[in-house]
């Protein structure tokens, strides 16, 4: 083996080149990310911080916000009956919506997952299409259907049940929410049922489980991640819904989302609006953590 006279020098040169290569690579990555990174910091992270700061500010008598007298007043307001009722109503309606979606979507997803590939794809595309169509229009369609003298009302009247008067009630809001978020429940449920190892179901049948028993003891527990993921995907946006309660609840059935909007656009109580937005976001963050824990990322 020939010993190179400058072996040591070469070694440091190479180590240096390797390090420089890595540094250059990192710099390239940062450069590529930088425009959107800066954008997201300026137009997302900073606004988020502003909301947080505002939630500790004071509303002056003139309706403007004083950025000086920091306090927890806005959060204390959340305990007041009006706000508490809004929160409770939102949670209850969101829960009802979630349960209804689950009950409707599970059999549908199960049916999909047990079909041939062609039928399954057709059904899934059929679910996806309304999901992609304009959200406002989908809500408007129900407003039209449920309007007094509208198609549903005329139909129930013609079969002798009298006119249907459910527009601007909680029922209408729930119908609208279920309609809007049903695909969010179907898709993760389908994913987890589709991934189910059917040999486990066969094994349970082989071990004397009846059909319903093997569903309860095997299928349901194994598809639980889908149930949890779907429930969160429905529950969270329902809690924050604004358009649906506005159009189908007629502003009477104030939910959290609408209440926040009112605080900003009408009541001009920004601190309360800000603190409520934060509560809403906390719900969302906790749910997201549960979602990832449940393996939702893989769905």
């Amino acid at each position, binding site marked *: *083996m020939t010993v190179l006279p400058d072996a040591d020098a*070469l*070694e440091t*040169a*190479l*180590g240096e*080149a*390797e390090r420089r*290569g890595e540094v250059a690579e990192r710099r390239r990555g940062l450069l590529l990310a930088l425009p959107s990174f800066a954008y997201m910091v300026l137009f997302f992270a900073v606004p988020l911080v502003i909301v947080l700061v505002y939630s500790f500010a004071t509303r002056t008598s003139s309706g403007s916000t004083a950025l000086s007298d920091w306090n927890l007043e806005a959060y204390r307001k959340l305990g007041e009956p009006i706000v508490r009722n809004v929160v409770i109503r939102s949670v209850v309606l969101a829960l009802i919506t979630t349960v209804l979606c689950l009950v409707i979507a599970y059999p549908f997803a199960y049916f999909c997952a047990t079909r041939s590939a062609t039928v399954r794809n057709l059904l899934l595309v059929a679910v996806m299409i309304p999901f992609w169509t304009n959200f406002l229009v989908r809500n408007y369609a129900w407003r039209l259907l449920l309007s007094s003298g509208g198609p549903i009302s005329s139909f129930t009247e013609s079969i002798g049940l009298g006119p249907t008067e459910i527009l601007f009630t909680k029922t209408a809001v729930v119908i609208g929410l279920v309609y809007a978020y049903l695909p969010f429940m179907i898709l993760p449920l389908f994913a987890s049922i589709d991934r189910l190892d059917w040999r486990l179901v066969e094994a349970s049948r082989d071990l004397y489980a009846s059909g319903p028993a093997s569903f309860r003891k095997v299928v349901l527990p194994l598809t639980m991640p889908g149930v949890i993921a779907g429930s969160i995907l429905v529950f969270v946006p329902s809690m924050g819904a604004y358009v649906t309660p506005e159009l189908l609840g007629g502003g009477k059935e104030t939910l959290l989302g609408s209440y926040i909007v009112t605080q900003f656009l009408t009541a001009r109580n920004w601190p309360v609006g800000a603190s409520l937005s934060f509560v809403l976001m906390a719900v969302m963050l906790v749910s997201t953590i549960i979602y990832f824990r449940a393996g939702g990322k893989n769905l």
Partner: protein
Amino acid sequence: MSLRAVSKHFDDVVAVDSVDLDIGDGEFFALLGPSGCGKTTTLRMIAGLEIPSAGSLKIFGSEVGPLPPNRRPVNTVFQNYALFPHMSVADNVGFGLRMSKTPKADVARRVSEAISLVRMGGMENRRPAQLSGGQQQRVALARALVNRPKVLLLDEPLAALDLKLRQEMQFELKQLQREVGITFVFVTHDQEEALALSDRIGVMDSGRLLQVGTPEEIYDAPVDRFVADFIGRSNFLAGTLEAHDRVCLANGDRVTVPSVADGVVSVGDAVQVSLRPERVMIDRAGAAPEGHASLEGEVATVTFLGNSIVYRVALDWMTIEVETDHRPDLDRHEVGDRVAMWWRDDAIAVVRP
């Protein structure tokens, strides 16, 4: 091409540990080792896809260690071919020439030459997805060779093919290398493939290059227990090197060994004696000829393999595997028989434990 003390670290993983290696011009060289031993990393450093952490890497005398891949006279056939799925066969093959700004007319001519070299004429307009595994393999070869590299690097090029196709392609690859006459550095974890194809083999384990030699040297005179074990099968008898041609085995027997090369082990070291099962002769106890080292033991199992029989013989300090031809003129031993085993002095090798 020469590598001197080349190392590569990924954070705290030492992927390649101070490798010294010379590869001659026009040689078919195989880097052989189990998965994860650092073969791909070594190859990628030669290709310029990784910069070594330390050491020197020369191709035709000039240092290429820190050069990027597009400035080296080297091309690679990737592990899963890495054909561009959105380009036709012809566009794939011509890619390197277009990137290096070769005149258009030359590109067309060299592409069609390369395609016919790998016998893919008529498939120029197909997409990689429309080709079989063997055909994709040939396109990958053409795509690299069309650039007339001085060294062609191949990373497990046959691993994705099924057995029959693999054997066919082994033959073609060897043929092709003779035709183009350039250096091939070939990575594989398949010892048979390495033995069948290469002029020389380098055996790697855990980032270290353990031995370099012709296939015969590697098989007949391994210097490391790992090498002997990885290539073929072997019995390992523990002992101590007493003189450069004598080992004292663990049971106290002394055996003569081929003289040990310098730098592998030194007199006084604990060593292992590698004894290939098919090099061991076996007969009734006491039938060992004079003048040979021999061992006696009791047959523990007999396995019939068609053309051969494998005996596992229990000694009181270890078990030895013996493989004999299945021939009517040889005695067959049964479980429980006492047998004697012996071997020619040059049938064994002293290895690092």
